[in-house]
């Protein structure tokens, strides 16, 4: 298990580094997806499910955490390539750190590379990682008021996955109210209620990812703002 330590970017602005990275990924035809959420929303479980479901795609993963290699180990156990990044206590990844991670991961012409960001609903939204797609997860156990309390994360994400749908009956989570709140902050955001555990809703999300990959590879595609 490869574990690497990365430090914050100093010097060249993060935005410039992010743009450069996006251009590089464009030319190689690999879609880098920045996956963000609170701790325990189900990032690793979702990636694991996607790897199992989308066998026709070549997928690699960069796991970013403060500590431990449990997430990268889970991905490796599925037979997919993964590295574990330790962020030296930083609560988010930025473009420089992402680039360092990609260098260590090594590129094998993947279709998708997931960056599983540090579990945090605040700081990751503030730092462009250079990804081609930002996806966030809100789990039904966290509450439908999170769009009100952490608006930037919802605004910066191209898609919001509502996870752990199978456990909905245990919580006072109103999917319709949540949807309205998300659309209020980010009109046009894609919303995918699903359960990585049971498979409910996974097909719609997977189809969307495949569409976005095709789009990424065609000329004249728009990268996320």
């Amino acid at each position, binding site marked *: 298990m490869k574990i690497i330590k990365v430090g914050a970017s100093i010097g060249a602005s993060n935005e410039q580094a992010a743009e450069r990275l996006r251009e590089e990924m464009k030319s190689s035809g690999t879609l880098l997806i920045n996956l963000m959420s609170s701790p*325990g929303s189900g990032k690793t479980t979702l990636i694991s499910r996607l790897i199992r479901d989308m066998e026709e795609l070549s997928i690699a993963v960069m796991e970013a955490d403060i500590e431990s290699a449990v997430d990268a180990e889970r991905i490796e156990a599925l037979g997919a390539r993964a590295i574990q990044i330790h962020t030296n206590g930083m609560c988010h990844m930025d473009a420089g750190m992402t680039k360092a991670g990609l260098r260590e991961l090594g590129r094998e012409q993947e279709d998708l590379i997931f960056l599983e960001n*540090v579990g945090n*609903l605040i700081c990751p939204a503030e730092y462009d990682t250079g990804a081609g797609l930002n996806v966030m997860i809100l789990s039904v*156990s966290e*509450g439908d008021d999170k769009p009100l*309390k952490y608006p930037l994360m919802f605004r910066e994400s191209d898609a919001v996955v509502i996870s752990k749908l199978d456990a909905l009956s*245990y919580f006072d989570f109103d999917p319709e109210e949540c949807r309205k709140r998300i659309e209020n902050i980010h009109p046009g955001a894609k919303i995918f209620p699903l359960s990585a555990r049971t498979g409910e809703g996974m097909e719609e999300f997977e189809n969307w990812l495949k569409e976005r990959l095709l789009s990424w590879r065609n000329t004249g595609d728009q990268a996320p703002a």
Partner: protein
Amino acid sequence: MQIDVFETKERILADNREAAKLNRLRLAGEGVVFVNLMGSPGAGKTSVLLNLIRLLKDRCRIGVIEADVDSDVDARKIAETGVRAIQIHTAGLCHMDADMTGRALEHFGPEGFDLIFLENIGNLVCPAEFETGADLKMMILSVPEGDDKPLKYPLMFTVSDVMLVNKMDAAPAFDFDLEKAEERAKKLNPDIRIFPVSAREGRGFEEVAELLLQLLAEKKGRGNEDH
């Protein structure tokens, strides 16, 4: 370059510890117990507070400082119980530090209160690094988040005095091993006190309430000795 970043951080944390000491002195003078409540977004911080308020509000004078990046939904919920609550917005900062806490306490006016809670920003990372001057650090891990969180966010578990395992009522829907979570937390922090609770069902809070009253009695006792 990397070394510069570290030194700056160490300076910031050292300065913060000094500011935290000042907060502690001020509150000791008032005989107030100050609790820093932390946990991931959605772990149940506000719901836990509502339960503690229910058990304690007739036995001591409680106040709440709600810290968020946005919205006042939390402060409103607390205010509905009749307890004084103020809402702080941190302008995007992902944690409360001692300076901000000091200013919040100033604004709140701790005189005449026995127990003040700071509901910190929902974040398992940064709040663990910044002392606020609290007498007690209470963190919440909720069942749906998983029993591996002590492995992944060790500092939060290391610095906390109390750990509430919340949403126990939802345990049937998740692969959460309470014993494993407790073992992992205790490995990092053998003195941490762990209480499984359900804020939704109002279960498990009596012991936590007693712990807080005990802390209050001790602080008042020390205060009386000084006079």
